[in-house]
């Protein structure tokens, strides 16, 4: 349309993008490193500590941290250190699974919206409706109604995130669809589903990866909030949310029951978010624009 010759990106501009990307990878290293450490600690919980996270010790309740119980014991005399590490397995799994599920479903639905206007209209109405229900409320409602288990909690958290992913993917689909290279492929006679998967989906990957990391963080938090509100996993299962919820009534008496799981939770979410930010800076093509902005 424009008659002008839009000049190709100058070398200076291209350089800027890579330069800034390198500077930012520090956040990637910090976030990734911290996360790796926490994940490893959780995964190797059984090697790191020999104590059974479920073992009740009637005469060792609410012990302050010492060399036997690194993080102290809770109100049933269970070892908080062991519980926090083992709890990490569940919490991290919830984070990963919900984010993955939300990303998968959201992407599929978002791509579907790219097929035709009618499908788009229907899908988007449902998405708008889901969007209008506050995510935490939806999750709380689903879990408290269906009953708490891994499947229900993961899907409850995921459902709340699906609309966001769908909108993201749909946005990319609608934009990329108009790109000449997609038009060109369409002109080659490539059918729509293949077009979506081969030419449009790859453009969604970068924003999806970023969104997914943030969803992992949000999901880990959501599990904790569900636990806090008393509608999370069954209490006998150590998860960060449950450990926090159990510590809540004795918090002022035995702060270690809250402080240590809280620290682990906070650090993990922080690490994932930092990682997400790092990835965004790395992957988001808009970076070029932000660099141009420098006065």
């Amino acid at each position: 349309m424009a008659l002008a010759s839009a000049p190709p990106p100058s070398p200076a501009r291209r350089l800027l993008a890579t330069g800034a990307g390198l500077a930012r990878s520090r956040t990637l290293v910090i976030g990734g490193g911290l996360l790796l450490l926490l994940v490893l600690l959780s995964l190797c919980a059984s090697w790191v500590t020999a104590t059974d996270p479920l073992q009740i010790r009637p005469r060792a309740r609410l012990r302050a941290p010492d060399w036997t119980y690194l993080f102290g014991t809770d109100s049933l005399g269970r070892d908080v250190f062991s519980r926090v590490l083992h709890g990490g397995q569940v919490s991290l799994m919830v984070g990963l699974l919900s984010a993955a599920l939300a990303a998968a479903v959201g992407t599929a639905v978002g791509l579907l919206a790219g097929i035709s206007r009618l499908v788009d209209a229907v899908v988007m109405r449902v998405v708008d409706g889901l969007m209008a229900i506050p995510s935490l409320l939806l999750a709380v409602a689903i879990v408290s109604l269906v009953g708490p288990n891994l499947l229900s909690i993961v899907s409850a958290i995921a459902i709340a995130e699906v609309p966001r992913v769908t909108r993201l993917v749909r946005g990319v689909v609608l934009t990329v669809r108009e790109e000449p290279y997609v038009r060109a492929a369409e002109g080659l006679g490539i059918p729509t589903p293949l077009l979506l998967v081969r030419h449009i989906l790859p453009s969604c990957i970068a924003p999806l990866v970023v969104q997914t990391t943030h969803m992992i963080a949000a999901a880990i938090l959501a599990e904790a909030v569900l636990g806090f509100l008393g509608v999370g996993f069954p209490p006998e299962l150590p998860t960060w949310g449950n450990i926090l919820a159990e510590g809540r009534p004795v918090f002022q008496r035995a702060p270690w029951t809250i402080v240590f799981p809280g620290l682990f939770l906070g650090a993990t979410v922080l690490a994932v978010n930092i990682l997400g930010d790092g990835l965004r800076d790395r992957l988001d093509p808009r970076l070029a624009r932000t660099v141009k902005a420098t006065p």
Partner: protein
Amino acid sequence: MMNRRDLASLLLAGLATVTLIGGPAAAAEPKTLKVSPHASLRVLDPITTNAYITRNHGYLVYDTLFSMDAGFRPQPQMVQSWTVSDDKLTYDFVLRDGLAFHDGAPVTAEDCVASLQRWAKRDLVGRRLAAATAEMKAVDPRTIRIVLKAPFGQMLQALSKPSSFVPFIMPKRIADTPPDQNITEIVGSGPFKFVAGEFQPGVKVVYERNTAYVPRSEAPSAMAGGKVAKVDRIEWISFPDMQASVNALKKGEIDLIENMTADVKATLDGAADVVIQKRSGKSAATIRFNWSQPPFSDVKVRKAVQLAVSQRDYMDAIIGDEDAYQICPSMFICGTPMESNAGVVGTVEADLAKAKAMLAQSSYKGERVVLITPNIVSFSGLAPLTQQVLRSIGINAEIQTMEWSTFLSRRTLEKPVAEGGWNLANAVFTTLDLYSPLANLNFDARGPGAYTGFVNDPKTEALKNTFAAESDPAKQKAIAEEMQTRAYDQVFYIPLGIYNNFAAYRSNVRNFIDSSIPVFWGIEKN
């Protein structure tokens, strides 16, 4: 120390008094007692729900014919005098002077009859009484006559039944409401009036002093004695969690926390201007079996569990504070008239070797058993510890945690686990639920359709009938001991120990009556 906020609220309260009440009352500063109750009051009708909070609300607003004193003895309350015929079949109760409902109407015998009839349709003991009753009527405005078909030795205990359901007296026009429908108007003749306009379910309940109330002259004792209201206004303020109310008490934002566990109490130890009081009412934790399904239909399996349980372990694990708990094998709870050690097996200390041996003789084949538990705080430690105990003798137990309501409906199912049933459940009672051999739900032994667990023991049911007819306390006690021996032998359930809860209040609050049920007469605030 008075800060600006207190000053402001005082001024405001004063202002409100002037505008609302006006006149001479404005001169006196109204005394408001702000209370954190143990739960949120939602249902106002004490006959449609057995929730403790609604019962407590009932004690503020309503009065009873008889009430129970600290020694678990029935004492007259609204009743001036009563007579029993020689054949023990006709009771006449005469109401005392000056009784009036909050709407100004005098309390009549007709009101009492209607109220008792409504109650008797809901309450277990009430049903027993109704079954034994030939006729209940108002002889004159002040006299109620109950004519029995057969002797009912527990008459006064029934009319003073302290815990849900309580035979509260309400106006006939209200008591005529069907017992499964909520009453909408809260009018009683008790020492406090319910302020309907300020009621916010789940947030706040407000009561005002009933200035027209004529208390008895006796000193207060538990639910009995003179109910003298000494504060002008009581506000029940709901809190979403215990810690918030503890903080509010520490800061003087509320005056009284009615009930807290030993763990919470510990966070208040040493707090300035706060008094902690151990409540006399006790809680009793239990394990209940499902008799209708294997493996616990086999008494040997139940006995094995009985031998594996140590009350001390349970109490240490869930309470911890030795001053707050008590090892108590009595099924009618230590400190009550029926307390006894008859027939006690195991209980205090575990004997794992014997338990395993017993299990080996039983029909248990290592199948998975399901322990159901609600996700509420007072139950939180019970299920995991029970699971640990069961595993220690080789019973493969799985915990299923659920919503309170799901728990309630699930535990009434007499189906196999595979079809949504259950094998074990923890339950927590209070002294008032258990001290009476008739009202004690653990002795509901009617089999299918009985209280959850479906204990099936006709012998116990027969003993209860004998007990109901018996009026000699010594003989009653003997029957109760026989019942307990039978229950231990057949392992109706396993008592896990009893523990105290605590009340805490600001130091300017005095004379909080030590009662199983928190009552708010007698209490003063300076």
